[in-house]
């Protein structure tokens, strides 16, 4: 049930994000707007109102959604790739190596993301590429832990013993016999990671560490509206709602998949 509701909501969001340029005729990033169009409250003309530069918030939320979702998907793709490889190797090796590799993961999990982001941004600049890398760096560990646990459990299964008894080499064992059997678990954790990454990306962008203005992402729109929350509530409310609904739908899908 959760799975179905989540998929319907997510499908709706994806369609909106993909068709953003055709849904709204406003330019999300145009800066030179007449003063008369600033801080307009929601109306039929501007569904979600306008912000301090007279930009249509609806257009910004839709376009920002494209960027936020793109970043999240790219990050999760990278995190799944590194995380499952790392987890698979750790689980496969077992013993002391497994302990070492997993303690390293624990260490990274204990590292504050915002601090890491500030450092990297200060050292290398604030490009999208760095944002994606930071997010990958901070989100592959969960995937690694899940995959490792799966591999450890799989290793004792008779069909893996059978594969070993036929003399197959490590690569085949790992990539053909072990990892494909973790795909269900990987998918479930990946979906949940998407939700987390959207939140972290928004948080970093809100703090000015992520996507940079004037480019719209859900986090930067929130940032735009934070000073005028009392007078122009629509600037922060709509991207906030977008984040909540999207994260919720991913969580519902992820949970739904785990219970199947």
């Amino acid at each position: 049930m959760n799975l179905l509701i989540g998929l319907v909501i997510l499908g709706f969001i994806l369609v909106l994000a993909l068709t953003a340029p055709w849904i709204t005729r406003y330019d999300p990033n145009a800066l030179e707007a007449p003063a008369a169009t600033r801080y307009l409250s929601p109306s039929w003309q501007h569904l979600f109102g306008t912000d301090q530069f007279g930009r249509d918030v609806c257009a910004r939320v839709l376009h920002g959604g494209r960027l936020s979702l793109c970043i999240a998907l790219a990050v999760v793709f990278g995190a799944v790739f590194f995380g499952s490889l790392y987890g698979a190797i750790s689980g496969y090796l077992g013993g002391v190596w497994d302990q070492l590799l997993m303690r390293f993961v624990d260490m990274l999990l204990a590292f504050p993301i915002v601090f890491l982001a500030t450092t990297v941004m200060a050292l290398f600049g604030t490009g999208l590429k760095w944002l994606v890398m930071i997010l990958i760096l901070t989100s592959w560990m969960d995937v690694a832990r899940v995959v490792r646990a799966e591999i450890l459990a799989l290793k004792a299964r008779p069909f893996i013993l059978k594969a070993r008894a036929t003399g197959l080499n490590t690569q085949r064992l790992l990539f053909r016999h072990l990892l494909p059997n973790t795909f269900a678990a990987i998918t479930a954790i990946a979906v949940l990671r998407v939700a987390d990454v959207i939140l972290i990306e928004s948080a970093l962008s809100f703090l000015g560490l992520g996507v940079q203005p004037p480019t719209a992402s859900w986090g930067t729109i929130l940032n735009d509206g934070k000073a005028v929350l009392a007078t122009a509530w629509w600037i922060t409310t709509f991207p906030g709602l977008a984040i909540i609904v999207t994260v919720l739908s991913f969580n519902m899908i992820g949970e739904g998949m785990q219970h199947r």
Partner: protein
Amino acid sequence: MNDLFKMNPLLQIRGLKTHFCKGKKILRAVDDVDLRIHPGETVALVGESGCGKTTLAFSVFRLVAPPGRIVGGAIELRGENLLALPERQMNAVRGREMGLIFQDPSSALNPVIRAGEQIAEVIRHHFRENRKSARRQALALMEKVQLPNVEMIYDSYPHQLSGGLRQRVLIAIALAGRPALIVADEPTSALDVSIQSQILALLKQLKEEFKLSLLLITHDFGVVAQMADRVAVMYAGKIVEEAPAPALFTSPLHPYTAALLQAIPQISFSNNGAQQELKPLAGAVPDLANLPSGCAFHPRCPVRLEECSQKPPTNFLPAPNRIVRCFKYEAA
């Protein structure tokens, strides 16, 4: 039979010890086991659950999972000690020199790989065959194990196949590396009775055709009678009796063997309709981590002597081709 013993054995296990260490406790799953298998011979390894049969099978493949460890002895294949091989060379022996058939066909096939490909991958791995030729050879092998509709089964996933079909696929996998020795761990226990006899007949036929040696691990004396040339009876990690199959059935020497044979139900109705009474063996297999002193069987033994609880018996040879680990035969 006697001719067999003049030949060099294909597999010779000497004083093998596989122990599981759990903290301070040592679990002697396989303890000082000697066993020979000659080319073309079928040796049955019989014993109750938990006596170390499966651990012995996995030890031969050096696939005992930690905390289990082979702590002593030798496993010689054509005179070469497998325990001394580096892991890489050992891996070249697995599947190629000896194949393993598992007990439960429903869990021994990878659920996400097509059945045929699990055969073909072994052929590709050991003989560096290309995809097409491996597929052709796998299909041929599937015909040999008497699978119907081989093309269709090749492309089926394990869950789409019945238990009997899966076991045939597993046998084909074990044969794919063209090994000289097949170790079959309870190959029919998880199957329906009607399928059991089919699989046994198939194993017998394949054994002749491929000139295989067979180490058959079972708890079923029916299987032993149908298949084995020689029988080793295992109890609490040790082989307590070894004998040619017919001799073991007609004159079991070890009290444990005798008790096991008496616990088999017989389908025989005498004239007055009364059935032969079953004599269940009292007691249970001892905890391997906490074995009784002396002979591990002495608490259950109907004919125990005084020394049985004091020191473990060694192997005695009361007759040609017969080995028994029991003080009753010390004098003989």
